């Protein structure tokens, strides 16, 4: 079994500090695959703000089980009309990996999303910080 956490450094610390994790288990090369799936979610952009869902702090956990990638994530608000758009974009992105047949967007509302979950890069892109 292999566990990879979001933004995990070699010393095991979580520099983002927002509680997001990524796990991949029992794969031939789980470390590389975990990194690949997680990094690929940087390609899923919220079109309205032009920032990817990982940097927005929306993704909590990615697991791969029986070729199904389960993305545990939230939206900035329940009932956000963009949910379907995001799910399709995630599916299109992750199924490019041969080891992934399908995806499941597992929407959760705890922890509640807040701007503090955004990465420094997202805040920079949206003009909070320089």
């Amino acid at each position, binding site marked *: 079994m292999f566990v990879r956490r979001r933004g995990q450094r070699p010393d095991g610390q979580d520099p983002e500090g927002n509680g997001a*994790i990524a796990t991949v288990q029992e794969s031939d090369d789980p470390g590389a695959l975990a990194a690949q799936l997680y990094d690929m979610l940087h390609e899923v952009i919220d079109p*309205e703000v032009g920032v990817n869902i990982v940097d927005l702090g929306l993704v909590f956990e990615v697991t791969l089980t029986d070729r199904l990638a389960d993305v545990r994530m939230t939206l900035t*608000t329940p*009932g956000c009309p963009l949910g379907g758009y995001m799910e399709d974009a995630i599916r299109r992105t992750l199924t490019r990996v041969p080891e992934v047949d399908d995806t499941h967007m597992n929407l959760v*509302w*705890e922890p509640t999303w807040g701007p503090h979950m955004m990465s420094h890069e997202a805040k920079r892109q949206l003009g909070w910080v320089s």
Partner: protein
Amino acid sequence: MGIVTTPVAGRPARAAPAIGLTTPRRRRARWVPPLMAVAVVLLIGGLWEGLVYLGLPLAAGQRSLHVDHGPLMVLGFLGTLIALERSVALGPAWSYLAPAGAAVGGLAVICNAPNGVGQAVVTLGGVILVAIFVAVHRIQASLHNVVLASGAMCWVVAGVLWVANWDIPRFIPWLAGFLVLTITGERLELSRLTGRSRRAEVLFVGAAGLFLGGLIVSLFAEAIGVRIAGAGLCCLAAWLARYDIARRTVRGQGITRYMAIALLTGYAWLMVGGALWLDIGRMSFADLGRAAHGSAYDAMLHAVFLGFVISMIFAHAPVIVPSVLGRPLPYNRWFYVPLVMLHVTLLLRLVGGDAMHNKASWQWGGSLNEVALLLFVGLAAGAVIRAARSQRKAARPPQPADGSVQEAQAAT
């Protein structure tokens, strides 16, 4: 193969959270396309009567269609789309009663159903939309959700007054209330991404409260109420210009920039509409369809409903249509054509027609407003169809060369 997940070191493991919403892909009921088709029928009916209002020599259609152009466009067409977007996002089957009410009720109004049945069904759709926001609030309470629910309440108030046979100009500010509070509630939510301050939140509540207060006063003292609501619209437009995320994202590229430009131009029209409400106060369509030009009423409404609202629709369609329909709508630069056309022709209508009393400008401007809207619908539909075709093509397995089929079968 079991799944084990590990929380970040040093944090307590969280219990599996209760999930209030179902998986989006499963939410898209089969009757989403039929409801969207009805919305298009209502749009075409409303646009036809719009042309009749403009004085074009066309058959006027049913009396109700002629009289109820405004409520049909707002509660019928836009009500169906907005409620559909919310019910797809929330998921449960009952939530689809909101767009169904708007669609079926709108059709009943077009067909001149007796005893205000259509108006009552449309109003019921608004009640279900309020229930959707109550359900969302129970999952996660927030200020922006309260604003969105207030917008839905405006739908209900407008619907009740419609059923009660009030003159349309008396309740049309409530129709604007539905759309303005729905859109600004969304923008309030997104403004959190820019690090919205407590002060900005208070300012928004003040502006929205002023607008809502004006709507309420308009029930008893029309001119004063409309003026107060107009001041509220100006404050909301100023708030959006100052705090909305579009100010930052307009520096982006592609779809992000397109959306930001559509939003910012829409805010300018909201400011114009608010200023007109504030200045003129009284809403009356006495001259509309007779004098057929120089109408303050025409300018007061279409600055908001076309300039602000339709610009928002153009902005959000490339992301909302895929969410609702489950089919991609790839952005392309041609979307700027109907957007620019909408704003230029609205200027022609309001400045050349309404302000300078030139009937030809008013008619050309108004007709071309509709062309811009239909052009956008056509471009969007074409993009959806092309994307679906290329998806099917990509999913099809490659055809082997002649003669190789049998070889392939023999090999297996």
